């Protein structure tokens, strides 16, 4: 009898008040807490934070291609057998809050990944991990955070040139764990200030020789020149001409980069990795194994006449190239030229697909050396002064490498036109029109400089769940 009592007591005690019994953490997914608790975890989180860049809404195709389509570098093939319907909205500039770009979600996703790293770095320099190791991770995170803010503010807000105090996008610098906060939009100027502050900090802390280890493409990771190149562009967009020129100069003077010449240019677009010694400063690496690989909707398939082919070259653009300009050769027809359209070969693919059973993949260049020359030329035209450099010299540096004779003189319009020809299909033209307050000259759908259409609408789902967000005018 006594034994029974003891047994019963024992069993009850075994489970009474043992709260640990109720702790069952996931084992196959890593809890956020654990991921962010060690240097290795943070390093993995940092490696993963790049992944959204490759999504189709971003550099994985549409952020770039839609900008080209809106501004008239790209157009729909006239033969409708070569369209899939994916480019109708950008082509007709008929964005609505429900059909607007989905960049918002991916960019803030990357920002939260970056913020998690930034917030959890302090104190992780234990063992073999040095303070510089932490700083390198932080610099990467700051760069990605800046890039995400930058790509959003130039898409969803009026340009700095139009109205620096217009609503920009919410600046997010720390992770909202509960997902309950409802941030309001900061002004365009505030957003640029933050982007520049992040990049300056990154520049100041990164090891000049640092590039993330263990990746396939060493130009698809954050490096000191990438930070400086993005700084040059951010200053250019916010019309800090001198600083834009100074940072362009830092990259131009970096011996690691060299202009492609006319002979090299046609061959650089199909490489698996950019490698050293060329123009590429920062690119997004394309491969089927990327979590966010766009497959049929990747840039290669969207610009392949055998593929979806929605994104053909606009006659406005192809007409700009003079005879002898190798950039004018970066276009192709379909196999039998039945469509009469041309497509860019900047995304001709790595030879990893046939566009029929499998689409090909492509890298997407974000920052490269010729842009630095163009940035500096434009800055100098706008009053910046760089010893030993001129707008004419910078523009000629480009055109002479493209098989053309040098200019005798250049002004703002020549700089702009050269920029358009050089960076066509790389996602610049729409934003270049906007930030310089120019009208779009697209022949089939011109757009005056003052139109509300220059800022895309904020996604409706965000307006619905965040009462502090104000939609852009006109939508």
């Amino acid at each position: 009898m006594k034994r029974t009592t003891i047994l019963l007591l024992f069993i009850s005690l075994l489970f009474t008040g043992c709260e640990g019994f109720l702790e069952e953490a996931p084992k196959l997914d890593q809890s956020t807490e654990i991921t962010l608790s060690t240097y290795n975890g943070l390093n993995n989180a940092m490696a993963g934070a790049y992944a959204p860049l490759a999504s189709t809404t971003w550099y994985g195709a549409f952020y770039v291609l839609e900008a080209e389509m809106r501004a008239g570098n790209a157009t729909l093939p006239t033969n409708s057998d070569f369209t899939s319907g994916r480019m109708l909205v950008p082509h007709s500039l008929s964005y609505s809050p429900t059909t607007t770009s989905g960049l918002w979600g991916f960019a803030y996703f990357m920002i939260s990944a970056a913020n998690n790293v930034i917030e959890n770095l302090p104190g992780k320099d234990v063992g073999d991990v040095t303070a510089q190791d932490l700083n390198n991770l932080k610099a990467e995170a700051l760069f990605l955070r800046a890039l995400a803010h930058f790509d959003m503010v130039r898409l969803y807000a009026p340009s700095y040139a139009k109205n620096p105090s217009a609503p920009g996008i919410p600046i997010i610098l720390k992770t909202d764990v509960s997902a309950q906060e409802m941030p309001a939009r900061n002004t365009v100027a505030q957003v640029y200030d933050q982007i520049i502050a992040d990049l300056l900090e990154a520049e100041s802390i990164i090891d000049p020789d640092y590039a993330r280890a263990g990746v396939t493409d060493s130009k698809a990771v954050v490096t000191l020149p990438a930070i400086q190149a993005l700084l040059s562009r951010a200053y250019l967009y916010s019309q800090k001409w001198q600083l834009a020129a100074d940072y362009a100069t830092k990259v131009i003077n970096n011996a690691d980069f060299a202009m492609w010449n006319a002979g090299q240019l046609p061959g650089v677009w199909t490489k698996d990795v950019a490698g050293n010694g060329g123009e590429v400063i920062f690119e997004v690496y394309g491969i089927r194994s990327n979590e966010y690989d766009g497959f049929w909707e990747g840039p290669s398939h969207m610009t392949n006449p055998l593929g979806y082919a929605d994104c053909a070259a606009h006659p406005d653009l192809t007409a700009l190239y003079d005879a002898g300009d190798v950039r004018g050769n970066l276009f192709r027809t379909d196999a039998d030229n039945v469509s009469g359209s041309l497509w860019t070969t900047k995304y001709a693919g790595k030879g990893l697909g046939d566009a029929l059973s499998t689409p090909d993949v492509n890298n997407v260049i974000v920052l490269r050396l010729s842009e630095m020359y163009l940035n500096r030329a434009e800055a100098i035209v706008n009053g910046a002064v760089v010893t030993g450099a001129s707008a004419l010299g910078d523009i000629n540096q480009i055109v002479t490498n493209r098989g053309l004779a040098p200019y005798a003189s250049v002004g703002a319009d020549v700089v702009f036109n050269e920029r358009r020809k050089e960076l066509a299909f790389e996602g610049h033209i729409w934003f270049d029109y906007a930030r310089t307050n120019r009208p779009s000259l697209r022949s089939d759908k011109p757009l005056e400089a003052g139109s509300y259409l220059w800022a895309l609408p904020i996604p409706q789902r965000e307006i619905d769940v965040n009462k502090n967000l104000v939609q852009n005018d006109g939508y």
Partner: protein
Amino acid sequence: MKRITVLLGFLVLLGLQVVFAQTKQITGTVTSAEDGMGIPGVSVVVKGTTIGATTDIDGKYTLANVPQNAEFIVFSFIGMRTIEMPANQAIINVVMESDSKELEEVVVVAYGVVKREAKTGSVSTVKGESIAEAPVSSVDKMLTGKMAGVQITAASGQPGADSQIRIRGTSSINAGSDPLWVVDGIPVMAGDQSYFTNTGNAIAAINPSDIESITVLKDAAAASVYGSRAANGVILVTTKSGSAGKAKFQARSKFGVSQLANDNGYGVMSGKQLLDYQRQAYTNAGLDPDVYRPYSLLDGGTIDWMDHVTRMGNLQEFEINAAAGTDKGKFYTSLSTHKNEGVYYGVDYEKITARMNADFKLTKNLETGSRVNLAYTESNDVAMQSLYYVNPAFAGMRILPWTKPYNADGTHNINIPENSNTNPRFSADNDEQFEKQYRLQASQYLSWKPIEGLEFKTNNAAEGTFGEGRRYWAPDYGGTTGTLQTSNIQYLQLTTSNTVAYSNTIAEKHSVRALAGQEAMRRTYHSYYMYSPNVDVLIPFPNTSTAADDDGDYSYNARTLLSFFGILDYNYNSKYFLQASARYDGSSLFGEDKRWGLFWSVGGSWNIHNEAFMENISYLNVLKLRLSYGLNGNDNIAPYQAYGVYASTAYNGSTGMLPDSPSNSSLSWEINKTWNLGLDFGFFKGKLNGSIDIYNRDTEDMLLSKQVPQTSGFSTNFMNIGSLRNNGVEFQLDGEIFSTKELVWTAGFNVAYNKTEILDLGDVKEMTYADDARLRHTVGKGMYTFWLKDYYGVNPSNGEALWRMADGTLTNSYNKAAYIYAGSPEPKFIGGFNTSVSWKGLSLGAFFEFKQGNKVLIIENRYFNADGNQMSTNQAITALDYWQKPGDTGVNPKPVAGNSSNSYQFASTRWLEDGSYLRIKDITLSYNLPQSITQKIKLGGVKVYASALNLYTFHDVNFWDPERGVTGVGAGIYPMTKTFIGGIELSF
């Protein structure tokens, strides 16, 4: 020992008789009413004395020194009704009856039994004997239509498939809506546990004929002591235990055949029909039918592919069980096999179960016992429940009648372009898809009753499922490599349940029962999966696949539950009953801020018939009013949802981590608040019994994926934000219409009405149902509402399909048609009725089941009533009813080859039909051989029976059978089958 005692007693008595001539001797035999056999060990005592004897092995007794003035002899035995006989004869033979009639007055409820009279909550029960004969593979299938408010829906007629059970409606969108199963006091795992097939019904481990009774706890008062798992009701299963007395054996066997249920003449066209139809379609398209569909197509002969892929299913079942006991211990054991070959080639299901239930009294107040059940199930199938080419239910409808089934050399023809070169018979012969499972349910208890009315009990259980799965795609003839997937799964659940209960009656009128308890549960799941492409066709195992191509996956999760609970019952003089229960549950599934929850209920009832003022109303013997309110929880969600997690991601040739879900430290259970008002009544000495219940169940804190600002990095978070309501009425009536000694006619009826209304979905007014966009969850409407384009019908003047546009005008353009809310798959009324007539040993029973007011979407007909869009496949015979001349209405649109009118499109009310049905679920004729014969052949009893399941279904659905799951969608369904069986039961 006993026999020696008897012998000694006999000798003593014999001696005494010599001394006192004042006494007399009485002898006799005690037999059992059930089987007519003698009962050993019966106590035979002269009333008012200590003079007594015990029956011997044959039930014989001798009372030697009975005083001359003795008035009565008392016969008593555990489990039998005590009998008193006048002591006025020298030979007194007695037939004892089991006191199970008295047992019927009690109902198994949570953590105990109560007298039916004392219940305060809403419970329904089914007795074991009414379920043993049904030719089904698992217990859930037998409950269909038996109990008011308990809706059992088959998503598939495949042997071994599980059922969707909804007690009083569907209560949740994202948490489960299935009830908790409790077997012999231990909550067990339920649902489909297989990897590749859909036949891993965990409840099938229980052999239906091992079941003594099933109780369904429907309202809060009945169920809330199960706390965070009680919201969808609780099904309590009690298995059989032995009773004291001579060992009893039973052997049963069943044989049966089955075929597709098809009571509306659904089926495919013959070759001639299809050819005429297609020629008409070409003519309507302005094309020459002699070019596209010449009559010569029929020259090579045609076949009915539906016939070719189906067969007569068959079923066999064998079982043997034994039960015995003494006053110290008792046991019940059984062994059964069940084999069911499906109506489609490639589908079968086999099951072996073994059970041992034993109880033993260690000392006067210490008892122990165990319940052990082992089951092995093996099911083979093909990719059923999908619109996939190997699914015979789909492919058999598609393949053209003039396509040859076999090649000249007798092999299966696999050159079938209209079905992606797939022949389901080839697949059934050569591909493999199976799940083999071993299941163990074992529990052991120890009970200590130190004083009258007080019981300490500990009940500890282990339950496991171990499964092995295989899916193998064979190459075409001559191929050398196939594709193999294999799986290995394990579920383990450990439970300890410890209670102390005290019951007493104070001052004769105050009855009190109090119970306090504690439970803990831990369940783990893991699975290994391996993908092995290009395995050698001669050695189709992972070993022959190259290591570089293999791919493996591992999955694991665990959940724990810790609980404290109590029940308090009080009644005054059997008139006023009060019951309260509370449970405090802690669960690993929820966020750390909301890990513990309190659930409770109170219920009261008033036995009006026990009031003095009712004494004169003789025709009314039961009148009982019940009222209860309570709060219980629904924890039926996947584990780890409260944790923010990082998941691995790949970019730039390296593997990194990315945030995958936000953390939610306040994630908690859904709460159900239920009130129930019920009235039980009984007339004419129990010949007519019934009850009415009205209830309202509000689900609050419903778990929904809430849209969150993406500035957080996430789009959604799983939060307790929604609410919905179920309310309804249930009515049950059972009666004896006619009863004489030889002829008994009984009938029963139950019906339930339930209405579900979504009250709040958080930020939104409508959500798309996660598994099918044609269903919506809409505030102000039911759980599911069909959202489809509004099909009008055929244009009488030209045979085109017409739809309504938003403004009500008609259009022939599907794209311009308006979407409408087109009804719900939830039935308004469900129920059943049964009747049985027995005369002497012969008994005829019939059972009907019905659902009314639900819509079903027969999406298969998109392919088989395609109006010329599907020219390369066969069509349903119902497609022949098409528009032919101006003025035709209510028919299919005119078939046009290559139809581009979109009349066949998915999301159209054209495929939505009234799913109401009345099913003759079961008709059974049985015959118990009279004892005069069974005794001659030395058997306790012989019963033979014949039974038909799903004999006929009255419905209007343009398909084999109207049932297709709770959501009314689903595709490629294995329809219900009709089964005819014959069986025999022997007792000895």
